[in-house]
């Protein structure tokens, strides 16, 4: 029982450290790609300390509760995700629960942003929801393919099954789904080619327009968690999730750097282009993957 409580406390902490490290790394790699030095790796930590010390302005109770709910939702999702062998709440709900609790974060952010009474925020949120509809289509097909392939809805079983039958990114039908998941990873993370919902130039950073001080700090922590969750989900489902956290971290690092290289060199999609892209190639790959998995299974 004690190890369980330890795991419950440890895994969000680990996720936070990994997420913040990824944020710092992202800015460093982006800078290096732009031929400049870039901030020190711990710049996100400095930013957060500064933001916590700043005063701030609130637009009403929902403005505060929304951001708190959004961060709490992200922390709870981390509890369901296996990080190496640590997976505290894997017994009370599998992949479906993860998929649904991942809803809490954007919903909380949308509610608190809406209270900010600013059209920039509303436009940002409507674009974010359209984008989420866009990337959910291929994501759902991918998850369904994995679930039908391993005939289970619990993520721990998927990870254990991959120990024996090898990574599912290599096995024939799921290779397509893995590729399609990787193609939509920037959309899930909301980074460069798909950061149309928080575009600083067009809609003055969308849902974050009215955030400052501690709100912005919580929003960046929540972004770090989303970063961790999306990549951890990919590693668990397709790269076999590791025996111990260190290998798991290395796999996540590889996936993240690959995703980042795409993000650093692409201009921003318009929302229609983003949806057209998301519903064309990744969906086709995921669809074919699902069809083949069903054919093999029956």
């Amino acid at each position, binding site marked *: 029982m004690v190890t369980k409580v330890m795991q419950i406390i440890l895994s969000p902490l680990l996720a936070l450290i990994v997420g913040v490290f990824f944020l710092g790394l992202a800015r460093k790699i982006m800078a290096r790609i732009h031929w400049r030095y870039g901030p020190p790796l711990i710049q996100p930590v400095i930013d957060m300390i500064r933001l916590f010390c700043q005063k701030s302005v609130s637009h009403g109770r929902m403005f505060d509760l929304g951001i708190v709910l959004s961060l709490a939702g992200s922390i709870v999702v981390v509890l369901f995700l296996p990080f190496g062998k640590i997976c505290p709440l894997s017994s009370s709900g599998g992949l479906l629960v993860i998929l649904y609790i991942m809803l809490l974060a954007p919903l909380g952010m949308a509610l608190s942003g809406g209270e900010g009474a600013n059209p920039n925020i509303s*436009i940002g949120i409507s674009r974010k929801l359209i984008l989420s509809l866009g990337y959910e289509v291929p994501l759902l097909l991918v998850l369904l393919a994995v679930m039908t392939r391993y005939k289970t809805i619990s993520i721990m079983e998927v990870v254990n099954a991959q120990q024996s039958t090898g990574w599912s990114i290599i096995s024939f039908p799921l290779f397509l789904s893995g590729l399609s998941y990787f193609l939509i990873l920037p959309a899930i993370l909301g980074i460069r080619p798909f950061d149309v919902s928080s575009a600083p130039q067009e809609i003055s950073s969308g849902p974050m327009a009215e955030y400052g001080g501690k709100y912005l700090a919580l929003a960046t922590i929540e972004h770090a968690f989303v970063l961790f969750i999306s990549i951890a989900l990919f590693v668990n489902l397709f790269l076999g999730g590791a025996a111990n956290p260190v290998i798991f971290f290395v796999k996540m690092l590889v996936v993240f750097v690959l995703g980042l290289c795409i993000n650093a060199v692409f201009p921003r999609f318009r929302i229609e282009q983003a949806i057209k892209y998301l519903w064309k190639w990744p969906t086709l790959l995921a669809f074919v993957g699902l069809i083949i998995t069903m054919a093999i299974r029956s």
Partner: protein
Amino acid sequence: MSLELLLIIAFGGAVLIYFSGKISPKLRNCLAVVVSLLLVAITALLYGKSPNVTFYPGFFGIPIILRLNVLSWFFAITIVGIGLLSIVYSLQYIKDEKRLDYYYFTMLFINASMLGTVLSGDLISFFIFWEMMSWSTYLLISYKGGRAIGAGLKYIIMSIIGSLTMLVAIISLYNRFGTLEITALSSQMQTAPIDYTLFILILFSIAFVIINAFWPFHTWLPDAHAEAVSPFSSVLSAVLVRKGMYGLYLFMYVILGLNTLNKLSAGIISFNNVFCWIGAITIVFAALTALLKDDSKRILAWSTVGQGGYMILGVAFATTLGMAGGTFHILNHCIYIALLFFVAGAIEHQTGGVRDLNSLGGLIKKMPVTFVGGLVGISGLIGVPLTNGFVSKWLIYKTLILQGHPFLAFAAFLGTWGTILYGYKFIHNIFLGQLPEKYKDVKEVPFTMQLPIILLTILVLLFGILPGIPLKVVNAIGTSFGFESLNVTIWGIASETGTLNTINIFSALLVAAVFVWFLFRLGAKSVPVAQQDTYAAGTHIPKDKYHYTAEFYGPLYRMIKPFLRDVIDEFYYWIASSMQRLSDGVRRVYAGDVGYYVMYIILFIALLIFVQLKWKPW
């Protein structure tokens, strides 16, 4: 505590209220509440028992039977519960309309007739109460006059078609088996040939699919909801539409039973498969059409159509988990859609009849209780964890995936994401953003309208965190149909292929939220600020113009609008207009004066003579 007492109170109460309304409105209001309370009390007390009452009203000697089992109790409690809440809600809501006695009478009469359909033990009384329900619904839909009459007409035509097919089926059953009593029928139907059972089942399911507003027959529901009065549209969408589901249960499981149902398949096209695909199309089509609507009630109407698809997906799979998921979803949908219609009605009542989502906004500061109700209702509709919608959807998805139907599951997921989009649009355009100038002095709704909203909000959260309570009843229904019982515990389902533990999720979320709240309090205290003080690149914020609601998902509309033309609705209107042209032509033939008729006779005789001479048939 017998069944006739229940029905007598229900129908007698309706008549009593009509006449007491003549005496004084106050007496009528409290009488209505007392009658509904009495109904709820009696139904609750009838939980465990299953009485069976038969009496012969001297009607061709066919017995009228009233019986109660756990299935009909489950539907009865939702009917009387939502009936009570809508009566309490309409005390204040409808205060300044005219013809209130007529309104209260039809409201209670509909509740009584729905109760009758659920309690009826044989098909004749089922059909009688069914007809009473359809006609009184027509009366109450067209209560407000104007466009409501057109909507009511549309409803009554489609429900008449349904009743006629049901009547044909009942008559053919009677002359084949000689009895209409359900238990007797279920034993004799086992021996009936397959094609006959399929014929009966299709006839009955047409009636139930129409009232349940599945995809091909859904066109009456959006108009009926948009035009009906708010308390009635919550009864209509929460409970009345689900009578179709009760009918399907009655026929697929009570009368036919499990084994005959599975035999009904020719190759891969089995009855269940067709129903599932209709359900899937309903979900996706309704969810995406709801996105395009701007009227708050129309969005909820389309979501009712969509949610029906989840129920049939769960139920038509005839596995224990699917059955539990479908039945539990009926209860959940009934709770949160009634809550959402009460919220939409409250907004309409306070802002003077404004339902257009483009001109509302910022009401969260003025109507906090309604906002909490709307938020919890929408999160229930979406299926956010810790709300009841999540548990039933989890069950349905698990059946779909483990039975190996990923594409049905994909359609259901797509429907959920469409629900998220129009759910947030509903919340954002009404409650968030800038408060327009003309709603500055909008106050919170009176307490009698807040009470149903608060009660239903508590129910949504309670069944979400402790799903064991309703799941016990749902499990009893499953076992009564012959499924093996689920391992239900207070916090969810414990089964080896993946358990659901809502208590863990709730406690994890609670601890995380408290921890983040302390992290939030760590920073300096934030100064509350008016809605004018928001970022506008340093310029002055114009009144009423700094608000983004019109065409909330503009880019998405432009992409999916051409695919979502309601072809079925246009097809029905085409049939109606062609029928009208045909009858117009016939009217010209019978012009009315005798000269024409004589001419027709002569012509006909000439024709006969000509045929005789030409071909000599005789």
